[in-house]
């Protein structure tokens, strides 16, 4: 069973090859949703002109930053086990996981607090909600490892 723990200045993510494969498949499945997600690329300004200028100056960097974080997550998952992450890698993972969670939640039509109560326990245990919970668990564990 997957486990995350701190060892010196590194975070160790112990998982089985099969679990690694599942996570990589989840990343593959959700990543294409990022481009159309309003939450993944939020506006900075209400004003159209200011927003356009902000996008012109920062848009490419934001996209590169997001791609780099997703690459960090993929490379870590595809490497030797257990996965060993320095703090900058952990930050890349938690950012990438946040983008994946936002895109998946938006795809599921989640739009306000209290959404958990709309679903039955059975629905929470099965995809796609179980996928969202798995990503949440992983992100939370990694955040704890930074503390």
């Amino acid at each position, binding site marked *: 069973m997957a486990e995350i723990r701190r060892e010196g200045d590194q975070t160790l993510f112990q998982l089985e090859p099969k679990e690694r494969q599942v996570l990589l498949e989840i990343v593959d499945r959700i990543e294409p949703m990022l481009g159309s997600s309003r939450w993944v690329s939020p506006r900075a300004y209400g004003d159209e002109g200011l927003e356009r200028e902000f996008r012109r100056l920062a848009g490419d960097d934001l996209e590169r930053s997001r791609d780099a974080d997703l690459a960090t997550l993929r490379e870590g998952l595809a490497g030797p086990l257990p996965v060993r992450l320095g703090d900058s890698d952990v930050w890349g993972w938690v950012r990438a996981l946040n983008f994946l969670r936002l895109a998946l939640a938006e795809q599921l039509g*989640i739009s306000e607090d209290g959404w958990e109560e709309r679903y039955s326990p059975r629905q929470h245990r099965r995809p796609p909600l179980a996928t969202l919970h798995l990503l949440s668990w992983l992100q939370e564990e990694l955040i704890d490892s930074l503390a």
Partner: protein
Amino acid sequence: MTAVQPVVTHGTGHSTTEERDRPWQVVVWNDPVTLMSYVVVVFRRLFGYDLETATQLMLKVHVEGRAVVATEPRERAEVSVAQLHAHGLQATLARD
């Protein structure tokens, strides 16, 4: 494997010195899926807040739907918003 951080080198549009120096608010908005613990560590990392201040701001976002997390000159505020976006948080700029 280091993530590229977004860099905004200039404020948007043309403005006078007085306008440029006028403070702008960096506003973070609630979303229903981002983890509370994540918001706290991002506030601490980007703005240097202690745990108590970052937690109070996170709770304000969660309960009231939004919180002003910084008030800065426009160019700096745009960098802050870009950094928040790079962490997947919903952030906007508003005139102070």
